[in-house]
């Protein structure tokens, strides 16, 4: 029986969030997204020419995401620079989570590069990266059907929880944990990222998806606020 969360949050409570856009002047669009102690930065460069040429799509532009953790961002040992299989996987799922809202037909043959850097990691980094990337694309003025909001939800023993922190993610040894990163398009509730680490019954999963939608909407409010505040910076 899971009784209490390490930081005292309610099971459906997200950590404190903060977001800001336009933080990197030389980028076409940029944003910072923080949830709890996890801080992600994203910057967009593009549309620009894509090399090598054989990667070009003559009918539309392509999105290329690069997720990276700064060496000092991990909570334990130093993170070896240069990316890993994990960062390659996260780069790809980030691209897939953003494609559904983008229309790149105006930029045939070109690439839109999105760079995500994790400044500090305390669980939920891939979701924070996606939130920052979506904000950076909106900040850059790309036509988008909607924003993309992401957060990790999951199950710890008998409780369905929202926004697992590092301690909870690490419970796997003592307790049964299912960690489910989700990204949705807030307007329609359509899902653009879905992964799971762990075990859940079908019934638990349906409930988890409902909770995920509500949680992502809370994330959306923070993202929307950051965009609207762009001018008053």
């Amino acid at each position, binding site marked *: 029986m899971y009784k209490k969360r390490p930081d005292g949050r309610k099971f459906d409570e997200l950590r404190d969030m903060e977001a800001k856009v336009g933080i990197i002047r*030389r980028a076409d669009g*940029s944003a910072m997204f923080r949830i709890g102690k996890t801080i992600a930065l994203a910057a967009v*460069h593009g549309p620009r020419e894509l090399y090598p040429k054989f990667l070009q799509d003559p009918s539309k532009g392509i999105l290329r995401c690069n997720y990276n953790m700064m*060496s*000092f961002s991990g909570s334990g040992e130093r993170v070896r620079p240069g990316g890993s299989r994990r960062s390659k996987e996260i780069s790809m799922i980030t691209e897939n989570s953003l494609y559904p809202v983008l229309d790149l037909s105006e930029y045939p043959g070109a690439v839109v590069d999105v760079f995500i850097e994790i*400044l*500090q990691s305390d669980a939920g980094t891939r979701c924070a990266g996606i939130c920052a990337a979506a904000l950076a694309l909106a900040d850059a003025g790309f036509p988008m059907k909607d924003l993309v909001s992401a957060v990790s939800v999951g199950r710890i023993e008998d409780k369905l929880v929202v926004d697992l922190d590092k301690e909870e993610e690490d419970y796997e040894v003592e307790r049964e944990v299912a960690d489910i990163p989700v990204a949705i398009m807030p307007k329609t509730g359509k899902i653009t990222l879905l992964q799971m680490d762990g075990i859940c019954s079908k019934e638990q999963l349906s409930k988890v998806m409902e909770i995920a939608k509500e949680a992502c909407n809370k994330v959306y409010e923070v993202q929307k606020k950051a965009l609207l505040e762009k001018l008053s910076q």
Partner: protein
Amino acid sequence: MNIIQKHIHALLEKDQRLDGRKFDELRKNISIEYGISPKSAEGSAKVRLGNTEVVAGIKFEVITPYPDQPDKGTIMAGVELLPLSSPEFESGPPNIRSVELARAVVDRGLRESGAIDFKSLCIKKEEKAWAVVIDVYSMNDEGNLADAIGLCALAALKDAKFPKYDEKNQKVVYEERTNKGLTLKELPIPITIVKIKDKILVDPILEEEEAADSRLTVTTLEDGRVCAMQKGGKGPLTAEEVDKMIELSIKKGKELRKVLEKSSKEK
């Protein structure tokens, strides 16, 4: 030579710089922020030099001391010019410029100045010692990343606190940070000066870097001693020019050092 470089030359003849500064003037907005990644990094900082911005973080690792220096730890410096900070930077392993910045600006300045007493990094003679790993990342490049990087590495070191070392189990307990910081005996400050035509300019902005025939980064200490130098660019420098540049670096180094000292008091 393109129009911007031609214009820089024309303005220099009238003793003017592109952004209105004097030849020996640093950019106005210089700020230092400490503890930007406090949970994961043992020390961290962000530096803004005009619109150029960099961040740095410190991680402590335990290593086996070199056999010829059994009671000493060491430092390791890395610099990455992130593609997010400029459309000119590419993804991939550190390029030659990042390597130059890490070795010639961060590492050399700290090592040669004796800023950190390596003996204080000893855990157990001949067996274990601390390696202080400094990683600096560019966040926005609008000229003179070198000085911003050097300053940021220092600020992160000032912010650093040792993690706990568990003697019994022989491992670092990163979750527990001690209150013990690094004693910096010196504050080596790099100052970069470029030469355009025959004029020497301090703290170059992007357009000035691109127009420069040559550049010299001089790292100096409070008492005026020089502890590192690195010349860049394809043009030559006369001995008189180098002399002038060193003098200017000492003077401006003191200014920048005051900014660093003032900021840590307000921490």
